[in-house]
C-alpha cells in the first residue's frame, strides 16, 4: 500500500527565504517534496516543545526544524535552543517507544541554498521508509466514535 507521509517543517525566516522568492510552484520545480508543509517562524528559538508535540497529535508522521547554522544564528542562540528542544523530544519519543528519527533538526545556510530542498527530501525519504506514525497507525484499530483528543484545557486556581 502506498504511503504519502505527512511531514511538518518549522523553518526560521532566514533559512526559508527561498519559499518566499520561489513560491510553492518554484519549490516543487526544485524538487521540494509535496509531503512537507512549511511553517515559517521569526526564529526557531521561538518554537515551543508543545507546538512540535501538537504537530504529532494532529497527525504528522514526521517533523523537522530548520534553523540557522549553530554558530551563525541571526538571533545568536535561537537555533541552538531549537536543537536542544528537538533533542528533548527525541528522548521523549524514544521513551514512548517511537522512532526518534521522526523528528530532526537541520542547521542550514540562509537564503537560497540547495540544503533547504535536500533536508526536505531527506525527511521525505526517511519518513516514507519508517511508515505511518505509530501515534496514528493504531488509531485505526479504535472505534470511530472514540474520542482521542483532549477535551480542552482548563485553567487552575489563580
Amino acid at each position: 500500500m502506498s504511503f504519502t507521509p505527512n511531514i511538518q517543517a518549522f523553518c526560521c525566516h532566514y533559512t526559508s527565504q527561498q519559499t518566499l522568492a520561489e513560491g510553492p510552484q518554484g519549490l516543487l520545480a526544485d524538487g521540494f517534496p509535496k509531503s512537507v508543509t512549511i511553517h515559517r517562524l521569526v526564529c526557531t528559538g521561538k518554537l515551543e516543545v508543545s507546538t512540535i508535540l501538537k504537530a504529532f497529535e494532529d497527525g504528522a508522521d514526521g517533523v523537522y526544524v530548520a534553523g540557522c547554522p549553530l554558530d551563525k544564528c541571526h538571533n545568536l542562540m535561537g537555533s541552538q535552543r531549537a536543537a536542544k528542544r528537538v533533542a528533548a523530544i527525541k528522548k521523549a519519543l524514544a521513551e514512548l517507544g517511537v522512532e526518534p528519527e521522526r523528528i530532526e533538526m537541520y542547521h542550514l545556510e540562509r537564503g537560497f541554498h540547495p540544503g533547504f530542498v535536500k533536508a526536505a527530501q531527506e525527511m521525505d525519504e526517511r519518513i516514507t521508509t519508517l511508515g505511518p506514525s505509530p501515534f496514528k497507525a493504531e488509531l485505526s484499530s479504535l472505534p470511530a466514535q472514540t474520542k482521542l483528543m483532549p477535551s480542552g484545557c482548563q485553567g487552575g486556581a489563580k
Partner: protein
Amino acid sequence: MIIAERKPINEIMDMVKDAKRILVLGCRGCVTVCSAGGEREVEILASLIRLGKQKAGQEVSTIEATLVRQCDKEYIDSMDQWDGQYDAIVSMACGVGVNFIANLRPMAKVYPGVNTVSFGGSAEQGVWSEQCAGCGNCVLHLTGGLCPVARCAKSLMNGPCGGSVGGRCEIHKDVPCIWQSIHDKLVRIDNKEGLAAIAPIRDWSTAGHGGPRKTVRNDLTV
C-alpha cells in the same frame, strides 16, 4: 527552592495505564522556577500522555491546570472544581504536593510526574545544584556559610577527609571538596577560631532520623 525533574514518560504512562481521564496538575512554586512542573511543563506532559495513549490505542482526555501551590490546603481545596472529571491525577509538584493531595483527597488516585531531587539553586541556566539538606540543625554559622551536610559526600562535620585531592572530592572530579572550600573561606574571612574548632558528635534526630518532622509555631496557630 525544591529542585525536581520530570520522570521518564514511559514510567508515567505505566502509572496511568488504566485511566481514561487524567488531571495533569502543575504547581506555580519551586517546580515552576526550576522548569519541572509549571504551566509549560504541564502542557508538554499532557501532550505526551495523549500521544502515549494514542500509540497504545487507548482513549484519553486530559485536563491541564496549575495551582498556586500544592503544599497548602486552601489550594488543594480548589481542586473541587474538577471533581468527577478525572480518574487519576498526575501531580507535577514536588513530593510535598503529591502527599498533600493524597492526604486531603483520600479517594483520589494521585501519581508523581516528577522526581523530587534536592534543595538547591540555579548554578547557571539549566543547571541546579544541591545546597541544603534540610537537616533541621543549621551549622552554616560555623562553616563560612557552606553546608557540609548537603555538599560533603559523607556529610562530615570535621573535614576534609583523605579523599580530598586538589580541592576536589574523590567521588567525582567535577565535585568540589566543600571542606576545602570551608577552610579557604574561613581563612579569607580570618576566622581562626572556626578553623581550629572540632565539631562534636552530631545529633541527627532533627534530620529525620527521629521520624517525620513537624514544625509548630504557636504564635501562628489558631
